[in-house]
C-alpha cells in the first residue's frame, strides 16, 4: 500500500490492511474481509466470499425434485426447514399439488421452531462477537439443543432434515408431537428471558451495540436487505404478512420492526421475532388436527409442466427465494437460490466504514450470515 499523506496530519501515514478470515473466529465460517484501518477506524472493507461455493445450483439441475430437497438443507444449514419450504412450495406450485391442511400446519410449526433455533444460534454467536466469553453461547445452545432434539425425534437427523416433500411431509410426526412442542416452547421462553438478562439489558452490551452500524431504510432497501436487517430500519417487510403463504393469513402475529437500524435493533428484532414465533406455534398447535399429510394420489416420479416460478418465503435471515425454471421432466432446468444473507452481506461495507475495528466484527455478527447460503 502506497504511503499517502493523511489529510488531517502533516506527516506521512500508511493505511494498515488487516485481513480477517477465511479463518477467523468471528467470520462465522469461511468469510474473508480485508479491513483498511487508520488507527482504530475502518476506512474501507473489501469482503470476499466464495470459499464455500459448491456449485449447488448446477448440482440441483442434475437431481430430480425429491433429491433437491436434501440439497436445500445444505445451503441454509441453520434454517433447514425454511429452505426446504421454499423449494417444495416452488415445486408444488409448478406441479399443481394440493397440500393437505395438516401438513401445512406441521410445516408452519417446524418452520417457526427453526426460526427460533436459528435466532438462538445468532444470539449465541453474537454474544461471542461482542465479547462475552462463551456464556451467551452455552445458554443459547441449551435452547437450540432442545429444539434440535425435537427435530431429531421427528426427522431422524440433527442437521439435514430433508423432511418436507413436494405435496406434504415425508412421514407422520410422532404421537407425542404436540406435548413435546409445548415442552420445547416452555424451555425456549426461559431461554429468551436468559438472553434478555445476559445481553439485552446488559449495559456494556448496549454500549457496544446502540448506534453502531446503522443503516437507513432507503439504503437497506437499495442493497436488497431483507429480514431483521431491513425490519430494524423500520420497513415492515415480512413475507409472512405481505404475501402470506401456508396458513399465515389465518394466524395472529406482529411484524417486529425497529427505527434506527443499528446493531442493537437488529438484535432486539430477532428477540422479538422469537416471541412472535412462539405465539405462532401455539396457535398452530391449537389448529392442528389429524388428517392426511400427503395428497391422495402422488405420481411415483414427480414431473412438472414447463414453466417458471420465483417462490419466496420468510426465512430467519430474510427472504429465501427459489427461482425454478422447468422445461418439463423430473428435474429443474435452472434453479436459482436467492439467498438472504447474500444480499444482506452486500450492505456490510456501507455499515462498517467509519466505525471501529471492534465494531466491524459486531456489525458482521449482527448480519447473522450463513456462509452456506451466501456461497451456495
Amino acid at each position: 500500500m502506497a504511503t499517502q499523506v493523511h489529510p488531517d496530519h502533516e506527516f506521512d501515514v500508511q493505511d494498515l490492511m488487516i485481513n480477517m478470515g477465511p479463518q477467523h473466529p468471528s467470520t462465522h465460517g469461511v468469510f474473508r474481509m480485508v479491513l483498511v484501518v487508520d488507527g482504530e477506524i475502518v476506512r474501507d472493507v473489501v469482503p470476499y466470499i466464495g470459499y464455500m461455493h459448491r456449485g449447488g445450483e448446477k448440482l440441483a439441475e442434475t437431481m430430480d425434485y425429491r433429491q433437491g430437497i436434501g440439497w436445500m438443507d445444505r445451503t441454509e444449514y441453520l434454517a433447514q426447514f425454511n429452505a426446504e419450504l421454499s423449494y417444495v412450495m416452488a415445486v408444488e406450485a409448478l406441479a399443481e399439488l394440493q397440500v393437505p391442511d395438516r401438513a401445512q400446519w406441521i410445516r408452519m410449526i417446524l418452520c417457526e421452531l427453526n426460526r427460533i433455533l436459528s435466532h438462538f444460534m445468532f444470539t449465541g454467536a453474537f454474544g461471542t462477537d461482542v465479547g462475552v466469553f462463551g456464556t451467551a453461547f452455552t445458554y443459547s445452545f441449551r435452547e437450540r439443543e432442545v429444539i434440535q432434539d425435537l427435530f431429531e425425534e421427528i426427522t431422524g437427523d440433527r442437521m439435514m432434515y430433508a423432511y418436507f416433500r413436494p405435496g406434504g411431509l415425508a412421514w407422520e410426526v410422532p404421537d407425542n408431537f404436540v406435548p413435546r412442542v409445548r415442552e420445547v416452547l416452555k424451555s425456549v421462553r426461559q431461554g429468551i428471558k436468559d438472553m434478555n438478562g445476559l445481553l439485552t439489558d446488559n449495559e456494556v452490551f448496549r454500549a457496544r451495540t446502540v448506534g453502531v452500524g446503522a443503516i437507513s431504510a432507503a439504503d437497506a432497501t437499495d442493497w436488497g436487505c431483507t429480514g431483521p436487517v431491513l425490519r430494524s430500519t423500520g420497513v415492515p417487510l415480512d413475507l409472512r404478512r405481505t404475501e402470506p403463504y401456508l396458513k399465515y393469513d389465518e394466524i395472529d402475529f406482529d411484524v417486529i420492526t425497529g427505527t434506527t437500524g443499528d446493531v442493537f435493533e437488529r438484535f432486539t428484532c430477532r428477540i422479538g421475532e422469537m416471541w412472535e414465533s412462539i405465539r405462532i406455534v401455539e396457535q398452530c398447535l391449537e389448529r392442528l388436527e389429524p388428517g392426511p399429510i400427503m395428497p391422495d394420489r402422488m405420481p411415483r416420479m414427480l414431473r412438472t409442466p414447463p414453466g417458471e416460478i420465483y417462490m419466496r418465503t420468510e426465512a430467519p435471515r430474510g427472504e429465501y427465494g427459489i427461482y425454478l425454471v422447468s422445461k418439463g421432466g423430473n428435474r429443474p432446468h435452472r434453479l436459482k437460490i436467492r439467498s438472504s444473507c447474500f444480499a444482506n452481506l452486500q450492505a456490510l461495507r456501507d455499515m462498517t466504514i467509519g466505525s471501529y475495528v471492534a465494531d466491524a466484527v459486531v456489525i458482521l455478527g449482527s448480519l447473522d450470515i450463513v456462509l452456506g447460503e451466501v456461497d451456495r
Partner: protein
Amino acid sequence: MTTDDGAQQGSESGAAASAALDGTIWPEVDRALAGVTATAEPSVLDVIVWIPRDEIVRGLRALKHDANLKFDYLRSLTCVDNEEEGMDVVYHLYSIEHGYNLTVKAHLPVDDLNLDSATPVWRAANWYEREAAEMFGVRFRGHPDPRTLLMPEDMTDTFPLRKDHPLAEIEVLQGEALAFPSGAGGGGEEE
C-alpha cells in the same frame, strides 16, 4: 392483484397461469414503460415482462421511479441458459410500498452476451451481476467492479452454470441413479 392469491396457495396457482393479463399489474407497468418496447406474459405467480436488452436499464429505471409502482427492491437477478436459444437475464422486482411483484426478462442471443449493468438503478445488482457474469459469461457493461465473486480470481474463461459445462464424474453418476427411482429413498411418495 392475483399474485397474492397465488402466493397463498401454491397449488391453486395453476389457474393463474392460464389467466389472462387483465387483473394483473400489467396495465400499470405498460403505462410506466411508455417508450420502451415491452411485452408481457403471465406466469404462475408474477407477470413476466420482456424488455429488449438495449432498453433494459431505461425500462428498469422507469419501473423503479414510477410513482404508482415504485419497484425499489431488487429481489434477485440471475441468468437462465437456454443453450442455442441464447440466455435470459431475469430480474425479480418487488415494490415495498405497494406490494407488487414483477419479473423482468431480457433476452441475449448466444453470440452477443452483453447487457447494460443495473447497478445504477439498484446497488443490490452489484453482486448479483458479478455472480451472473462469472457463472454464465454475460458481460455487464458499466459494472463498477467486474471481478469474480464466488469463483477464483483467475477462473474467468469457464462458466460453470452454463448447460454445456461438463459435470464431474460423481455428478454424472448421480444423474444415472435417477433411472432407478425406487433406490432414491423417501417413503412418503408411495400411495
